[in-house]
């Protein structure tokens, strides 16, 4: 397989945030036009717009799974505004590194996150 950092492999093999939230307040799903992968992010967001819990489901490569897990970890406890500021670079740095060919995989996770937050905002603005 491609060379990955220990941190990436660890996350991939034993992701702490894999799964879904039944009582979720926000879901975001995106597909990767690059290689056909699919990522779904579930968020539990409270009244103060703080992300209480984040979970993911990913169909994709090792980098995609590891990034999803990392992103979920990073956003827990943050407000949605703070979460939206997370960059691809930051995710890659947190994972130690990612091969250039795999950078788009971490971007995909961020897109799913954004979609979930937007989904939450839409729900609440119409209420």
């Amino acid at each position, binding site marked *: 397989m491609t060379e990955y950092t220990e941190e990436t492999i660890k996350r991939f093999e034993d992701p702490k945030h894999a799964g879904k939230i039944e009582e979720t307040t926000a879901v975001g799903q995106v597909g990767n036009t690059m290689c056909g992968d699919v990522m779904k992010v579930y968020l539990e967001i409270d009244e103060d717009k703080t992300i209480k819990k984040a979970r993911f489901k990913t169909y994709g490569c090792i980098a995609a*799974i590891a990034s999803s897990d990392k992103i979920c970890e990073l956003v827990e406890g943050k407000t949605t505004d703070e979460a939206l500021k997370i960059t691809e670079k930051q995710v890659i740095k947190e994972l130690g590194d990612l091969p250039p060919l795999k950078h788009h995989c971490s971007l995909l996770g961020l897109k799913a996150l954004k979609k979930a937050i937007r989904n939450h905002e839409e729900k609440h603005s119409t209420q």
Partner: protein
Amino acid sequence: MDEEQTAYFDSGSTTRIDSKVLEAMQPYFKQDYGNPASAHKKGRKAKRAMNKARETIAKSINAQTKEIIFTSGGTESNNLAIKGAAYANKEKGKHMITTRIEHKSVLNPIKWLVKGQGYTVTYLEVDSQGFVNPEELEKAITDETILVSIIHGNNEVGTIQNMEEIGQVTRRKNVLLHTDACQSFTKTPIDVEKQKIDLLTINSHKINGPKGVGAIYIKEGTKITPLNHGGGHEKNIRSGTPNIHGIVGFAKATEQANKPEHVEKMRKMRDKIIEETLKIPNSKLNGPTGEKRLPNNINIYFKGVEGEALSGYLERKGVYTSTGSACSSKKLEPSHVLTAMGMDPERANSSIRITLSRLTTEKEVEHMLEILPKVLENLRKISPLY
């Protein structure tokens, strides 16, 4: 990972060398290291060894000894066959025919000829099992056609083409037939006379021989322009001091591999693996079954699990496999072979290849069959598509 726990299922990429082969090669490094082109004793000894090797290889495909040219491997033989035949026959025409399921070392020389050298190509479609239709081939041949190149045993899905039928068409139409037989060599019968093959590529490292050595069979009287110009080795078709230890190893590997019991053993293992893996829910075999499939090839689709992730997870558990998924390719495109067989990207990207050699052990098979369902379960649990 300690060696004991390793289970190697990527023999379609390369194999480990057989100890008997390694032993046969030994004298040619430090003792009989002569150049077969030299007139002295050491040179003569090397030449004798080379001739013997040539004989062994020729016999294994029912060719004449003089029709075998040694090369550095499959890629070189394919390049030599395609560019060599294209150049030598350009007066006759500049049209070639191939399939969509060839190895890159066939597709890319052809692309190169088309892009810059004024040749044209027709790609034959394959059916859902990967078979070429000889009637379609016949229809595609024009007065301009000089060469047809069709892979014998497919490297990804193991489809074995009916070379005899294909050969009848090309011979009748007076067009050269090349086949890449790297995967099928010693694993399914090859008879260049009966199958009417003009050019054939084989190599050593797929059959538990050393890397860096292969051969091309060139039917007597077939015109080929060399790629390497130099000292005139190999009847001026392939200059360069021959890789004598490699050639000796290649011949020994051929001799060792060419026994029906090996094919039987691999076929049984293959069918057991197919049977067991198909018990896993939502899995499907890609490619044909039985005699029409390479005895060492398994290619399976597992719904909802991306190939690179599956293969990578298995590797962490000491099980080596391969995948043609988009994520594992440099271009982020799914396998051209599975796609040509009509599979949608999700299926192509969720398939892995498990390939055996005659040295694969029962223990390795057991290990893999034990690990695989667990790994799949883990990955399916986190898949949004399952």
